[in-house]
């Protein structure tokens, strides 16, 4: 996807599908020309995870992913 296509999704909780089939759910941010999906900890006793996407070309789709429950 192009930067223009990705830009509206930044800072939102989304579901990102990559060209290699991997899917990540979390908050999408941009930093140093990379994109990051930060998935909150599934449980408060765990840590959040961050997946770095090195180029927008890797991204096939972005869709809204409303968080479950609270």
């Amino acid at each position, binding site marked *: 996807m192009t930067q223009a296509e990705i830009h509206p999704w930044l800072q939102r909780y989304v579901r990102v599908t990559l060209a290699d089939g991997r899917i990540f759910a979390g908050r999408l941010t941009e930093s140093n020309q990379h994109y990051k999906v930060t998935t909150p900890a599934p449980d408060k006793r765990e840590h959040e995870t961050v997946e770095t996407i090195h180029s927008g070309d890797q991204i096939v789709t972005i869709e809204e992913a409303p968080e479950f429950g*609270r």
Partner: protein
Amino acid sequence: MLRQDAEARSGPDGGTIGHFVVPSSRLGELATSEAELPPSISVVLDRHLGRALEAVDDFGLVTIASVDSPTGVNVERGDILETLLGWSTGYGDNCDVYCEVFGPQTRPDQIDETVHHLASIRHAQKNFGAKIPIRNAPASMIAHALAECSRLRVPLKLGVDETRAVGAHGILNLITAAAIAFRDSDARAAIVEALEDEDPSSFGIEEDSLVWRDRRFGAATIASVRRELFVAFAAFNPTQPAAQLREVGVLA
């Protein structure tokens, strides 16, 4: 049970234990118990839904994190879903509601109907999810429910009586099957194979990834699966899952 739960929470694997599960008809026992109460509970509603929800409303000792629809009851019958929806709206979004999507006699098309209904409810009520009671369910039915929930973005809780690490729907089988369904809800054959795999050597942890045969799921993928699809796991014995996972070498 409360004493066993308190002991388990203060033990080395206490961090792996979630909500204490109580049938709504036994909520009163928590009030009279002298044992230490758990920080939060999950309530399984009894078949008399009105009375069960009243018991939940009247309970104020600890946080009720979620309620489950009555065990073995088709939520599409009568007005169960509508009742839960109306109750949840009044109770607030801070209590999740899980609805069983199949029992021993359920057909695949009935699973589809319930999951579709839940997906529709979730447009307005994000705290609704599906519950899949594993028990003796065939892998094909569990796979069908997992795939359908993944396709329609319905989070689910899996419930088992006896836990195992691997085999007969062990914990590693279930998380692997959920991860496959999350990535591709059409991969039914692979989901079934992951559920039916009884060989512990098929599963492993390498660096930060869960590995099953030639498939690899990284930490961010597993976290996403646990946030979006396989959001809860209910079992009877609080200490058994961690001990079993340690036994097969996937937990330090």
